[in-house]
């Protein structure tokens, strides 16, 4: 036995020593040479493989990274979310806000050599009306005036229209190629962007080469390789070993690793995703009402029981600030002095009694297994127990969650995000709070409030700035007073890159302008 123990000790010590050495050793000053196509290439790590490179049908955020390199949009925006001319040199908006006329830039080439014309732009917008109806359904007709002018007519004034045209999923496609073979456009995309598609080795790499005839001049980066690495720890190791040069959506737990390494740089910005505690304000799929339907006091009780300062520490290590409005702070007309509901456990208990549950109750929360939704859920479970509510947390696999909660509304409480990818509350508010959007995957909270609807429509259609500002404030007030949902915090968009990269930019909504990146 003595021998046995001696051996065990010896082996364990030697293993421990070698692993500790590897973990604690300082950084080397020279990095391994880049195994790629040359010094001016970029290798970008992706945690998931994109499903398509067709801008019009791309709905997953990770897909927008290569898509924003391959296509140009009609309107560009700068880092401060200001609108800039894109494929449209200039535009004219009619006084009633119903007609937009775009002058299309001349001499722009597609990757396959064809020239961009108004035809391609009009075709793209027509496709958007069908394929992305929830946003572009407001366009009632698209007209080609001449080779360089396209006119769109809206069914009602829609102030965020130009912002919509800056999103990566509105990249302009080539009409001839798309009509000839729409199915394979996703595997062999053709755009006017700074990088053209080179190859896609399924499960491994997507390679883009820079487009020599790009209208703004060839990009400094000669090629971009999107490498798919499914495990986050491996991504970080690959980043440190200079096998990849950049990685997006880095967990906050790696922040210290990245910032502590002088060869790496950390970037972050508020994303447009507002993590929200959502209540089912309507019925389940079998017609029975959820416990929160018509029970404002119960919803309020829960809202007053949440301590957001503690929540952000527990959920995201304090890297975001608590949010009291159901939209992010970068939207236009953001009400600076808004008074949200603050943590008030006594009031919470009062409301609970008023709701008919003086002795507490058990509520079930359903979330996915993703950490950014399940972690806040765990914190909330603890906070609710302090006012006598027992919360049962059911974490579900994504497919089941989407079908049961997102599509069928079979839930009482859940945590999800209300996204706002451009600086107008319309994006999140219309889709998630408007009664006309109660449908699978849209207004899943089943919010049906005429006053709220009016405020949302006013913001959407009004061209009077004062009216719009008042509407934006109303939206936050109604959500606060009726407690249809509780905004928690705005998550951060994070990016880790090799420190030698210049021109790195990052904005909310996974938008990256690779044209400006260089070594």
């Amino acid at each position, binding site marked *: 036995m003595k021998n046995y123990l001696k051996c065990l000790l010896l082996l364990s010590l030697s293993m421990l020593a070698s692993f500790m050495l590897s973990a604690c050793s300082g950084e080397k000053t020279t990095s391994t040479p880049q195994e790629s196509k040359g010094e001016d290439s970029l290798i970008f790590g992706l945690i998931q493989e994109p499903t398509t490179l067709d801008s019009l049908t791309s709905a997953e955020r990770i897909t927008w990274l290569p898509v924003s390199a391959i296509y140009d949009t009609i309107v560009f925006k700068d880092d401060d979310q200001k609108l800039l001319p894109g494929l449209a040199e200039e535009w004219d908006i009619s006084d009633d806000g119903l007609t937009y006329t775009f002058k299309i830039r001349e001499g722009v080439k597609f990757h396959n050599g064809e020239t961009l014309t108004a035809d391609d732009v009009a075709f793209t917008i027509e496709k958007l009306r069908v394929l992305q109806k929830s946003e572009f359904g407001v366009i009632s007709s698209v007209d080609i005036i001449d080779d360089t002018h396209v006119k769109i007519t809206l069914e009602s004034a829609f102030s965020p229209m130009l912002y919509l045209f800056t999103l990566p999923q509105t990249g302009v496609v080539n009409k001839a190629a798309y009509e000839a073979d729409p199915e394979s456009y996703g595997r062999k995309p053709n755009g006017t962007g700074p990088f053209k598609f080179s190859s896609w080795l399924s*499960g491994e790499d997507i390679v883009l080469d820079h487009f020599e005839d790009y209208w703004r001049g060839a990009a400094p980066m000669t090629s971009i390789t999107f490498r798919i690495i499914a495990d986050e720890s491996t991504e970080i190791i690959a980043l440190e070993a200079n096998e990849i040069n950049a990685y997006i959506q880095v967990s906050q737990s790696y922040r210290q690793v990245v910032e502590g390494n002088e060869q790496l740089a950390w970037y972050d910005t508020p994303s447009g995703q507002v993590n929200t505690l959502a209540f089912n304000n309507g019925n389940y799929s079998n017609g029975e009402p959820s416990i929160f339907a018509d029970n404002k006091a119960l919803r309020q009780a829960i809202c007053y029981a949440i301590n957001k300062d503690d929540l952000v520490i527990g959920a995201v290590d304090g890297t975001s600030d608590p949010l009291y409005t159901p939209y992010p702070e970068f939207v236009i007309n953001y009400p600076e002095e808004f008074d949200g509901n603050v943590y008030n456990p006594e009031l919470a208990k009062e409301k609970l009694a008023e709701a008919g549950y003086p002795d507490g109750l058990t509520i079930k929360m359903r979330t996915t297994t993703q950490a950014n939704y399940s972690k806040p859920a765990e914190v909330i479970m603890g906070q609710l127990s302090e006012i006598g509510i027992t919360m049962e947390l059911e974490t579900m696999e994504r497919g089941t969650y989407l079908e049961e909660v997102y599509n069928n509304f079979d839930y009482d409480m859940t945590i999800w995000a209300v996204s706002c990818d451009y600086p107008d509350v319309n994006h999140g508010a219309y889709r998630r709070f408007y009664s006309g959007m109660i449908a699978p995957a849209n207004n899943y909270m089943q919010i049906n409030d005429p006053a709220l609807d009016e405020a949302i429509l006013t913001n959407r259609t009004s061209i009077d700035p004062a009216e719009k500002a008042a509407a934006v404030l109303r939206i936050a007030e109604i959500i606060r007073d009726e407690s249809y949902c509780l905004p928690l915090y705005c998550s951060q968009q994070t990016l880790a890159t090799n420190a030698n990269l210049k021109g790195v930019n990052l904005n909310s909504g996974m938008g990256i302008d690779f044209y400006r990146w260089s070594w």
Partner: protein
Amino acid sequence: MFRYIIKRLIYMIPVVLGISFVVYAIISLTPGDPAQLILGADTDPVVLAAKRAELGLNDPFLIRYLKYISGVLVGNLGNSYRTGLPVLSELIIRLPNTIIIALGGIGLSVAIGVPLGLASAVKQYTFVDYFARTLALLLTAIPAFWLGLMLLLFFVLNLKILPATGANSWKNFVLPIVTLAASAAATQTRTTRSSMLEVIRQDYIRTALAKGVPESRIIWKHVIRNGILPVVTIIGMNIGVQLGGTVVIENIFAIPGMGSILVNSVRIKDTPMIVSSIILVAVFIGICNLLVDIVYAYIDPRIKAQYFSVTSKRGKTKTKTGGTVA
């Protein structure tokens, strides 16, 4: 013997068909919409409905299964829901990577485990024995993903002699194979040791020693040949386990193999890809088990005799698919 092999191969067919039906049923009848999972949660309903029609998801489950399996029987494994490309072409690229890792892992574990187990048995209660048993204990306890990440940190970041990701050169496979072999080697060591010990205690070994036969001859001619049978059994069983282990390994080392595509396809319910991968894996395991059973015949003449008598009408000695001979 040839007849035996053919019979085994024929028996594999209903097994594989049964597996494919069960898996197809599980994927199709559980909640989750492939179209929404593939295109994105927030995709427009019009686009989703079009995709569902395109993938044939509106047909009843049995129709879809029959369409799929009739394709498989002529060699067409269907098209992936995610990419629309033929499943076979995708799997052909990935299968070799997984097989390299799995077979490499088994090979390395046998190369380390069997000699170590043998030495441990022959030199029982000496330093070699304690060392082997301790190592086996440690390797069994250490989970594969932790070991993989530690090896990555050490060899990639510190020593800088191996790449972290990809599958282009032999260097990429060193760490995955070592990680996979680690826990398998532990099992091999222990099984070999206990099996060899049992043989060593037999009377005929004692007789041989008494006769004056040199120890090395005893070990090679008697101990190994008699003790190797359970070890071969364990190797055969391990193949299935290793293939499962490659899933974790492939994710950590970013190697495009069958394991990683299987996991990704399950997440998005890409049914043709899932069922085809599982069919391939089942066939591979079936063939490996068959090879192991053939190896038995060459080690043990008694078993060889059993195989040759398969065609005779001797009731209980008929071998059944996948089972070891009693």
